């Protein structure tokens, strides 16, 4: 029994672990709720691209302000919002195919970000933090900031629930009812941008997509209504954050990777054993 108690309470002796756990829960919940719409609307690639596109903004903040996470957040947020709206309008009237256009923009911006950061002498450590996150370096001020923005994102999604639902499920109906489809489209892009910034410090650019898509996809297999899908996704996201951090502490693994691995494990389990939709279930029905 003591070993289990140690397993659970041991890490809590460290304040940085407590801050990390809170941050991981915030990220898990916010990303999963936003990610539910991304999964349903097939925007996974867009989200990944957007996460990478944030790099040059973060890099500029890094060059000006150094490693202080506060200014980095604002620089990144501005870049993310700008980039989401730009990519969004680009993909609406592009002569090249949408995914190609997004790919070009995101690879180019990502390269620019790395180039900027690499002008600093000892850049490798910081670059690693941007790419893979640094959940244990989260300060209380970061928690207030990401928590506040996370609440904003979730409140927006709850307030405009029926509009986002109709715009995602049946844009045609939205148009015949004269809903401002474009306004909600861009609002969704901005929400994704904010969620990316909320998650940046915890999981980093490279693994961001997993936090958005994996818990949502898992919940998609387990539920049949959007509100329950979002709720289950949020729970899985938060659980992945907490369990991943414990895994990282005990197995001495990179925290972002551990969180994503746990989320992926949840998905695999649901993929195999989900009632009615899982592979095992389908086989047993045959």
């Amino acid at each position, binding site marked *: 029994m003591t070993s289990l108690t140690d397993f659970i309470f041991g890490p809590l002796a460290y304040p940085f672990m407590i801050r990390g756990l809170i941050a991981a829960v915030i990220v898990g919940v916010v990303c999963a709720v936003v990610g539910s719409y991304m999964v349903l609307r097939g925007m996974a690639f867009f989200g990944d691209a957007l996460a990478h596109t944030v790099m040059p903004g973060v890099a500029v903040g890094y060059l000006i302000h150094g490693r202080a996470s506060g200014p980095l957040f604002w620089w990144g947020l501005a870049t993310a919002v700008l980039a989401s709206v730009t990519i969004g309008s680009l993909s609406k009237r592009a002569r090249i195919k949408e995914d190609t256009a997004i790919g070009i923009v995101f690879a180019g911006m990502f390269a620019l970000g790395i180039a900027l950061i690499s002008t600093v002498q000892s850049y490798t450590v910081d670059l690693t933090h941007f790419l893979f996150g640094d959940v244990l370096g989260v300060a209380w001020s970061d928690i207030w900031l990401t928590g506040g923005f996370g609440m904003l994102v979730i409140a927006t999604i709850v*307030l405009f629930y*029926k509009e986002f*639902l109709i715009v995602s*499920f049946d844009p045609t*109906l939205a*148009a*015949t009812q*004269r809903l401002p489809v474009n306004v909600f489209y861009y609002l969704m892009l901005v929400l994704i941008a904010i969620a990316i910034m909320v998650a940046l410090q915890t999981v980093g650019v490279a693994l961001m997509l997993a936090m958005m898509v994996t818990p949502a996809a898992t919940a998609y297999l387990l539920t049949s209504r959007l509100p329950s899908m979002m709720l289950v996704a949020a729970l899985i996201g938060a659980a992945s954050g907490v369990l991943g951090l414990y895994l990282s502490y005990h197995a001495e693994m990179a925290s972002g990777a551990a969180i994503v691995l746990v989320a992926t494990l949840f998905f695999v389990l649901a993929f195999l054993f989900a009632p009615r939709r899982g592979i095992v279930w389908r086989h047993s029905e045959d």
Partner: protein
Amino acid sequence: MDYAKYVSPFSSIQWYTKSLWTSQPEPAPYLTKVLAQRYANYSFGCSFTKGNGMGALDLQDDMDWPMIASVPTTLDPILRVADLQVRYHNGVALGSLAFEIERGERIAIVGPNGAGKSTLLKSIAGLLKPTTGSIQLNCKQDDTRLSIAYVPQRSDVDWSFPVNVSDVVMMGLTGRLGLLRWPRASHRALVARCLERVGMQDFAKRQIGELSGGQQQRVFIARALAQEAELLLMDEPLTGLDIRSQETIFKILDDLKEQGVTVLVSTHDLNQAAERFDRVMLLNKTLLGFGDADSIFTPQRLAAAYGGHLRVIQTGDSVVMLEDGYCGARESETV
């Protein structure tokens, strides 16, 4: 006659035609001129259903058919389409359409694939912007947008989306509820009533992907009922349904007719179009005929519409139509 303004983004066009129909004080002189050019083929003031854009049609001269099969002057038209043209970047999808539809009518729109059936329905629904022309609705509700319900082709809907049957019907109330309002008990009761009217009350909690094709179609009709739509536009609702489901749908449509709901349905099934609808509209890029089936489904007109894709054999008084694999193949695809 007080035509509620069709709430459309194409307000300038609407302005021209409004002044045309409602013999009101003269429009500004330059507008009259524009109108005169635009409607050179029309005699002003006559019913639009007569002088439609048949001038644009290049058919053999010896075909002596009336422009439109005898339509009584419409007394209470719910829809007026004038000079409608829709172009996509790769060409004309619909050219020079003009017609009127009476309140409570049930219309079948027929024509080969690519004839512009969906384009016409989407234009009426306000989803596509016509290049020229106007579409006017004469609805009882002030807010015209709520009066049209559009039921998309089944292949255009994501049936694995996590919504259940009542969620979909509730969506019909979104526009009326307005921003930041949540549905109340009365709205949920309305949804339940609409589901009852299409016989889907037992499926309220089912995810929409678990339904059969006919049931899915009924859910969307229930949503139109929730919208209290006066004009129901359905894009190939009967394609791929078995006979029993089709009969169920027709029963519901009969019920709607009694309440004065006007229904426009695009279909591939010419037989059904002839037997189950008040009038048929034969379409191939342009209007090839609009009237009762007897006068529209003539060998000449059908040949003009379908060309090689439909063989028309005339034996005595009756007309036999054989569709080739073209349409049939597509229908079985969507099953």
